[in-house]
């Protein structure tokens, strides 16, 4: 058990000077949330959410609109007060006003929309924000990192949607945060813009920045996050790695291939169904089934066009998890 004395000593270590706590870094999780509660009137927006984020990890909060993702994030940022539960971010309680200013030098926030005056230039916007922090990244370094070197002196309003989004990330990281909050970082971006943002997140994670992101894109979570918590109606409905969440790794696989010429689905040597010109075989033991199928195909001299083995996608799992829990009417 941790005593009050050791805890206050640790908080002191964490909040004073970089040299002392660097060695301490790995021991303390970036974020600890236990039984978090927040209501808006009768609506329980967050109802007992519990999770922890390790240092240097990319962690995702996944859930439909109105699930309580943004409210949870805002409580962790110290922007909103909680009704109950324990929250510790970078070793301190973000709701504690006495530590708030020091706390805010250590976090970075990327909001859902780029919120800057559009007639400022990229450099002006970043320089202004850099001035808020004790040891910011050099502005030119940030500009390079977000790939806007050619647009450094262009006005914000002349940037494309993707470029504005990258500037937003730049504002989030200019203060050299230990923990970066990314609220739906790629909503509204084209595929190329998403890739650039993803690369940036990976790069930050490689540098040791802890990243807590919310998203409702499954592919994004799969591409970026090492762990994920699925929230619906203010509760955690599943947690784990993107590959294993919801029993994804142990569930049935589906084998599909085009119906071969001169063969009907009844000829296939394993139980199969046909759908839209495709043979579908569902099995928990895909190795054995594939062995029989390919053996049969070689014997009969037929092709298995477009042969694929699919596990349930993260999206399938996600929809199963949240599907029978329609989004709350209020706040969605």
């Amino acid at each position, binding site marked *: 058990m941790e005593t009050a004395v050791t805890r206050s000593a640790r908080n002191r270590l964490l909040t004073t000077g970089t040299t002392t706590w660097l060695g301490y870094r790995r021991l303390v999780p970036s974020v600890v949330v236990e039984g978090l509660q927040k209501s808006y009137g009768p609506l329980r927006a967050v109802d007992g959410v519990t999770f922890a984020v390790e240092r240097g990890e990319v962690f995702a909060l996944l859930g439909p609109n109105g699930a309580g993702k943004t409210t949870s994030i805002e409580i962790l940022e110290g*922007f909103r007060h909680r009704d109950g539960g324990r929250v510790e971010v970078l070793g301190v309680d973000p709701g504690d006003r006495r530590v708030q200013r020091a706390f805010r030098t250590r976090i970075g926030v990327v*909001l859902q929309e780029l919120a800057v005056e559009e007639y400022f230039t990229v450099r002006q916007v970043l320089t202004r924000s850099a001035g808020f922090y004790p040891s910011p990244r050099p502005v030119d370094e940030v500009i390079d990192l977000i790939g806007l070197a050619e647009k450094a002196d262009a006005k914000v309003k002349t940037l494309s949607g993707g470029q504005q989004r990258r500037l937003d990330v730049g504002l989030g990281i200019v203060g050299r945060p230990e923990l970066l909050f990314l609220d739906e970082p790629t909503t509204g971006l084209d595929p190329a813009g998403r890739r650039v943002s993803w690369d940036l997140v990976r790069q930050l994670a490689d540098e040791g920045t802890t990243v807590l992101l919310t998203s409702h894109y499954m592919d994004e979570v799969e591409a970026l996050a090492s762990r994920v918590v699925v929230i619906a109606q203010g509760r955690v409905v599943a947690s784990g790695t993107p590959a294993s969440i919801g029993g994804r790794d142990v569930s049935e696989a589906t084998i599909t291939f085009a119906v071969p010429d001169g063969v009907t689905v009844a000829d296939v040597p394993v139980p199969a169904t046909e759908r839209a010109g495709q043979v579908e075989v569902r099995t928990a033991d895909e190795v054995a089934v594939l062995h029989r199928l390919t053996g049969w195909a070689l014997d009969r001299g037929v092709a298995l066009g477009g042969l694929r083995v699919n596990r349930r996608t993260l999206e399938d799992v996600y929809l199963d998890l949240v599907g029978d829990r329609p989004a709350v009417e209020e706040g969605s």
Partner: protein
Amino acid sequence: MTGDGDGLLDLRLVARQVRYEQLAFWLNRLGAIFTVGFSVVFLVFLGVSAGTSRVKSLGNIKLIQYYVPGFVAYGVMAACFTTLAIQLVNRRETGLLKRLRLSPLPTWVLLAAIFVSTAVIALVQVVILLVIGRLGFGVHPPTHWGVFVLILAVGIFSFTALGVAISTVIPNQDAAGPVTSIVFFVLLFLSGLWFPITPNSGLAHFAAWFPISHFINAVFASFGHGNRVWSWNDFLVLAIWGVAGVVVALRRFEWAPRRK
């Protein structure tokens, strides 16, 4: 809340933030022209159309002598009330206030910078209007500078407070312009900006409930027209509205966008 901050460093932060507030205002050309240009255009048009008309109820002074103090007051109100309120709603709804709130910039530094910057914009207008009055229409500057400076200070305080207060009751960006403009221009009209109101008339009594006529009257008095230079009543009503504005602002101010 700022116990860990260094006082001198924080003042430097205020100065730095004021610079960015000023940059934000003047770089937004349309907004700047709308704010500063309006008072200038109004004064010049009214001054030209007034010609040599005189106001009997005010000691037979020239109408333009009434308009110059009136538009000095207008300039302050436009900057502190209308422009500030619209800007705050825009900043709240676009997430700019939230972003600043999530940065280590202390809240008081931000609010101080907004206040100082608004005052600067108001004073720039005052100077421009006084110069136009003097050079364009031969209207002499205030004769009682002490009173003039004091009433400007109280006016800037009160209308800034009211600007913040009204921004907290406006739900979204679309409503910001119309709501503030309607409130502002109706009260300006009733308070005698465009034409002097007959003293002791029903309209004068009605307008006396609101801060605008008191502000215009007090600025007017500091120019040495009329039979008094100083009125406790004008200062008091203006200050009470200012304090009410502060109370509403403190109770209702929000950082996060209202829209969902």
